[in-house]
Structure formats: C-alpha cells, structure tokens
C-alpha cells in the first residue's frame, strides 16, 4: 500500500547511520513575558517516532510550531536534511515535506471534506478549479487511509473524531517527510486510534520521521522509539524508549516526585453543596447525576467531547438545561444563570482564560472586581467605590501571589500562570462555597501549577469549600480528587472513590465499552 506519494530522497535516507532528517540546535524563542524555548536541541531520524513529552506550557507547542513554519525562532539553527533552513511560512514548510496536525483544527467549517483536504493546493485547469479531479483525488486519499468519510460532507456536520481524521488526511495528502501529530488521539475511539497507529507505522516504513506529542503513558510505549522531555522551555533529557519508565518520565517532566508535586488534601465531606439529578443539557449531556459536598474535590474526567465541560457550564447557567434537577445547598435551582449562581456562592472558572475568563484589554483590578461590582463593598448608590475596590483587589492579588503585584497593570502583561491566578481571584471576591474549575491548570508552568494545587488545598481544608474539578489532565484527576465521575458520550460512565481512582480504571471508562485499554 503506497501510503505516501513517492518522494525523491525520502527513501534513500533510510538505514542505519542515516543523517537526521531534522536537526535543531540551541533554539530559543521569547514571547511577551516568557521565554518559551531556551536553547533546545532536537534531532529527528528518518523512520522513527520521536515523542515530545512535557507539561502544558513546557514549550512543546512552540517547538512544533517552529518546525511547522508557523513561528520563527529568535535564536538557533534549523537544519533540514543537513542544510540550514528558514521556513518562511507553514506553506513553505509544507512544500518541503513537513506536515502538522494540530490540536486546534485548521479546517474551514463551512467547506466540504474535499475542499478542506486540498485547501491551498487546489487542482486547476487554467484559471478554473478542476472539481471532478479534486473529488477523485479526495476519494482516493480517503480510501487509501481507510477513513470512512464522504468527501462531499460539510466539515461542520462531522464529529470531532471525524474532523480529526480529515485533519490527518490533509497532512498525509502528499509529499511527506516529517509528520507532526499533536495529541492526535484526544478525540479518537480505540478502534480509530489503532487505525492511526497503523498509518504511523506505514509512514515510518517509508522513511518519514514522526514527531508525536501525547500525555498518555501507554501510547508513548506503544508507538514511540525515542522520547524528549521538555520542562519550562528547556530540554531535560532525550531517552530511548526502553530506558523510559513511567516514574522516571513523570519525574523528568515535573522536576520532582509525584508526591511532592501534588499536595495531599484531607477529605472531610460535609454539607451537600451541589446535587444534579438526571441532567440533560445542550446537545451533549444526557441524564447526568452527581453530587459535590463541602470539603472535598470531586473530579469529572473524560475525553474532549464527552460532555464533562458542559455539565459544569449547565450548573452555572451558560449551557441550556432541557431536563433534570439542580439543587444548590438544598435549594432547587430551576433556571440557573451566572448572576444567580454567583449570588448563591457557586463560582465557575472557565477553561480558556483568554476567551472566557479575562478582559485582556483591562487591568488586573477591573478584572478581579468584574463579577462583584454590584456588592456594597464595590459600589454605592450611583458611583463605584474605587478606593475600597483597590484595597480588596490588592489583598486578593497578594493572597494569590500574583507577580508582579501591580493591579493597575493590563492583564495582557502577565504570564499565563499569573493570568490564571487573576481568574481564580475573580471568584474569591464573594467568599463562594463551591468552585467549578474547568481545566484550571491548562497552559501554565509547573510553578504556577503547584501554586494552584496548593490554593485548592487551602480552599478545601481551611475554608471547607467544595471543588468540582473538570480536567483532561489525568494526573490531576488521579492525585487530587477524592471522588471522580468518568464521562463518556455525554453520560456518566462510572463513579470512582478514593483508592479506586487509578489510571487504568479511569482510562477504561474513557472509550467504548469492552475495549479496555491495553498496557499503561
């Protein structure tokens, strides 16, 4: 099966002692406020799967964005097949055989599968599109890859997994020597994952190099040949897969042992805060029941698209509820709205701080005070009480250790971790009893992560608050939660308590029934 079009040079580079396809030397990249990459070295050999491993914010995305031509390095050298190279754009990199499949899809939702597949490389006769030829090529490509997709289907009608397949097909369209996959299995079922791994092996066989990003231990061992661990923008180690045990990888990734990274949080469940019964909401959530008590952290795990996020949003009143009951501190809430839930003492921490958490144009003080302005500490009858506001916000900034503690500074001047602290501080202005945290540590560095965890510990142990932790970060679920609900396709699949919360147990409920996860 000719998976990829024959390309000159690709096959001849195979074999032992072959020069690396790609060699990065002392690559550095700065973003406003952070150094995303700090003299990183990286090699990719033909015919290998090289896993990139590291926390969110460790620099993986920056690195692959540079390789894919989407970002330019500030320092360092990129050599492609031995020759120094500067990619001017993604298009330029693609011309040279580098394709990337990112987590954020680069698909145009209103176009069809075939139009998306050949976007930027349309087949033409003279000035006109050659639509029949394009359709044929699309059908061929999909058939070759074994994807059961209709080329004429509109992308926005497809499921997330199907969109992922289109994205992969786009990368494998032609002319491939380096393939970058960024958590490609996040939305795939077990069967689709097997299919993908087969494709990856085929690519390897043709001499392509694959850069593979994942957080899943079992995938690393299943598919990887070598692994490079990044932490805080630096390369920590590059190992042969045979030398990489799970414990070692976690230690390399976090820079400390698991026990030191995640605080132990006492479990003293008290009053029942949130009780959800038979909740059906939005287009995803079906018949979900769960409870959260004071003094405990309850996890909500599941794949992207499992509806875990939507459950939290429904309780806060941003996802329409079509059936079911929500009780908060014993009182039924027939129609939740953000205002009502905030007043009752429930705070929702959205997953994406830039799109939903913060008004980045405004300063820290205004952001922190935003949900609380109607309270008497912040406004009088007509005018705002700006001095009182300043005092309260300065105290909260200090409590959360926002650095630098300049609350009049625009939010966009702060690092991701500090921005996340501003989002958390927003919730604290009202002394809430329940936090619904949706991916609270996404895209922040290790130091800030530990601070967020310790903050959660403080909330639960000292203030007796309850936390519903919605997270795709499995270690977080495993080490922080006292109880965990696992969701699959909009339903709660299982409730695990205490010692039952193991990686094996949680993952086994992530996918279709019967297909328990192998390895791990």
């Amino acid at each position: 099966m000719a998976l990829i079009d024959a390309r000159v040079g690709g096959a001849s580079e195979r074999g032992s002692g072959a020069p690396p396809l790609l060699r990065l030397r002392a690559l550095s990249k700065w973003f406003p406020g952070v150094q995303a990459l700090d003299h990183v070295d990286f090699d990719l050999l033909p015919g290998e799967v090289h896993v990139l491993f590291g926390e969110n914010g460790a620099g993986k995305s920056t690195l692959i964005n540079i390789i894919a031509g989407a970002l330019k390095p500030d320092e360092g050298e990129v050599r492609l097949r031995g020759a120094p190279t500067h990619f001017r754009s993604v298009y330029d990199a693609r011309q040279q055989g580098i394709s990337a499949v990112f987590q954020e899809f680069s698909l145009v939702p209103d176009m069809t599968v075939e139009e998306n597949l050949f976007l930027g490389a349309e087949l033409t006769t003279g000035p006109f599109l050659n639509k029949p030829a394009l359709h044929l090529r699309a059908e061929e490509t999909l058939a070759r890859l074994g994807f059961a997709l209709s080329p004429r289907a509109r992308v926005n009608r497809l499921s997330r997994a199907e969109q992922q397949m289109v994205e992969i097909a786009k990368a494998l369209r032609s002319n491939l020597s380096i393939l970058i996959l960024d958590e490609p299995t996040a939305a795939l079922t077990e069967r689709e994952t097997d299919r993908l791994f087969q494709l990856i092996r085929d690519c390897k066989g043709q001499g392509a190099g694959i850069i593979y990003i994942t957080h899943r231990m079992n995938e690393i061992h299943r598919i990887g040949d070598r692994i490079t661990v990044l932490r805080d923008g630096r390369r920590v180690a590059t190992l042969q897969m045979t030398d990489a045990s799970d414990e070692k990888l976690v230690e390399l990734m976090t820079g400390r042992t698991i026990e030191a990274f995640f605080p132990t949080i006492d479990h003293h469940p008290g009053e029942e805060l949130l009780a959800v019964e038979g909740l059906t909401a939005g287009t995803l959530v079906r018949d979900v029941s769960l409870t959260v008590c004071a003094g405990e952290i309850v996890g909500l795990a599941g794949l992207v698209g499992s509806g875990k996020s939507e459950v939290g949003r429904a309780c806060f009143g941003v996802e329409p509820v079509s059936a079911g009951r929500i009780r908060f501190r014993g009182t039924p809430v027939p129609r939740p709205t953000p205002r009502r839930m905030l007043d009752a003492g429930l705070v929702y921490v959205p997953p994406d701080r830039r799109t939903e958490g913060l008004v980045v144009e405004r300063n820290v003080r205004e952001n922190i005070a935003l949900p609380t302005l109607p309270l008497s500490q912040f406004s009088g009858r007509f005018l705002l009480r700006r001095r009182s506001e300043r005092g309260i916000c300065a105290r909260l900034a200090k409590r959360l250790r926002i650095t630098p503690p300049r609350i009049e500074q625009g939010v966009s001047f702060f690092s991701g971790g500090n921005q996340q602290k501003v989002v958390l501080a927003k919730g604290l202005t009202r002394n809430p009893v329940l936090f619904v945290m949706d991916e609270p540590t996404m895209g922040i560095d290790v130091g800030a992560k530990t601070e967020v965890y310790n903050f959660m510990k403080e909330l639960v142990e000292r203030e007796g608050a309850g936390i519903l932790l919605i997270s795709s970060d499995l270690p977080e679920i495993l080490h922080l939660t006292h109880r965990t609900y696992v969701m699959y396709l909009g339903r709660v699949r299982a409730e695990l308590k205490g010692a039952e919360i193991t990686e094996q147990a949680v993952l086994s409920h992530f996918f279709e029934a019967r297909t328990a996860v192998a390895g791990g």
Partner: protein
Amino acid sequence: MAEVGVRRFARLSFVHFGVLPLLLVILVIGFGVAEPRFLSGQNVFNVSRQATYLTVVSMAQMLALLTGGFDLSVGVILAMTSVVSAKAMASVVAGSPNAVGLAITLGIMAGLGAGTSMGIANGLGVAVLNVSPFMMTLAMASIGFGLALFMTGGVPVYGMPTQFGATLGFGRLLGIPAPVYVTVVVIFGMYVLLNWTRMGRYFYAIGGNIKASALSGISTRSYLFMAYVLCGFLASLGGVMLTARLETGEANIGAAMPLRSIAACVIGGVSLRGGTGRVGSVVLAAVFIEWFENGMNLVRIQSYLQMVVLGVLLIFAVVMDEVRHRYVAKLREV
C-alpha cells in the same frame, strides 16, 4: 545622550497618548504659520462653538465603539431630531403664537424622543435580535433618512421661534457660547459614567470580552442595549443643538457625522475592537478635526478636497494605532 532621552520620551508619549499630540502640534504650528488668523481669539471662539456638535456626537459614537460595535446612524439621528423638533415647534407656535417657551420645550422633547427611539431600535436590534451593529445601524440610517425626507418633502422646515436659535444656537453667557456649556455637561457626564459607575465599567468589559463578561454575571444584553440607547440620546442632543444653530429643521444635516465621529474616536485612541478609550482624548480629537477643517477653510482648501484629507487622516490614524499596538507588544517583552 540627550537625543536618546528625547527619543525615548517621544516613544513613551506615543504609546500612552497615541498619535494625537503629534497631530495637534503639527496643526497649530502648520496653520499658525500659514495663516495668522488661525490662532486669533475670534477664530478660536468660533471653532470652540463649532466643535461642540462633533464633540457631543463623538461622545455618542464612543459608547457604541467601546462595546465593540459602532453606530452608522448617528447622522440620521441628528436629522430626525432636527426635523421632528422643528416641526413640533413650528406647529405649536402656529397654533398659539405666544406660547414660545412651551413650543421650545415640546419641540426639544419631541426631537430627543425621536432620536432616542432610533437608539432604542438600534439597541433592540443589536442586543436582543443579535443583528450585527454594522447592518443594524446601516439599515437604520436608511430608514431614518427616508423618514426625515418623507416628513419634510426634502425642503427645510421653517417657522421655529427665533428665541430658540438666539439662546441655544447663538446665545452666550459670560462670553462663552451656550452650546459649550451643554457640551461641558455632556463631557463631564460621560467621564463620570465611564469611570465611576458600574454601567461604564461594564461597557468596557463587554467590548473587551463579551463572553468573560457574561460569565462574570453581567447581563450583557441590557448593557449593550443601554449603550445604543444612550448613544441615540446623545446624538439626538447634538441634533437639537445643531438645529438651534441652523434655525431650520433639515433632513440632510449630519450626513458626514458617522465618518467624522468615528474618526474622532479612532484618532482619540478608542479601539475599533472595543474595550479601550478615554473621554478626554476623544474630546481633544473632535476639537482637532474641527480645528483642522477650520484651518483648511482659512487657507482656502476646497471643501471637496477637505473630504479627501479627512479620509486620509482617518486611515493614517488607524495605521498609527496598529503601530502603537506593536510598540506596546514590544515594551511587554522587555
């Protein structure tokens, strides 16, 4: 070393205040040298009165821009106000020639009512029906202009009591034109609204990030609605003032207002993406535009060419705003 300091100062002031201070300096020096009358007391007095109308309408426009939209119908709100208030005054005076005070009061109320209701319609469209501000206010501009022409048959409305123009249009108190007093009140009101009230804070927040605002428990719909209503009211107030100055009700006044008011806001540093902008800078920018046009009149640049110049200036301001954003991003990296 001194040169480096000057350059640093220039760069920092550019980042903080935008392109406006530079433009003002060029304006004063350029026209001041070319035409001595430009800086004379009489001319400054004229410009200060003439600038009030654009200032008030720019305040209105600023509200829409802050929330991340804009209002292309401010011109016809002016026109509607003018026509309705003139007609109302004329008909009351025609009925009872001695009730001048009543005629003026009723006329102003009718005009403000007509203008504000267009703002209400804009608000309903944008906030409740989710029509994009561009389409909603563009359509409203057509509706309003059509109605104003229909009511007047295209001819100016005469017959207003002369006292109306004499006080609100040409009157003075302590040597200062009457419209300036109204404008100062509007400016002060806007400053308080935007900096010291919840509503003002929410306008900025909604323009900056409407999702984050909704998740913070803000009723984004009602505040968006209010932004357009207030915008309509202020534009309408500008219409009343302009009617007093012209002493007629006219359907085609304010045709250039959407462009000029948006220009004033953008030159004054209001972001087209919403969420940022200061009252003081917008006032300064409005005065700048008016003074600039006045200067061009004095050196006898044709009015058609003036439109060209204003357009170029607007593009220049937007480009400089982009440059400024890049500077800000650079400063962040240090």
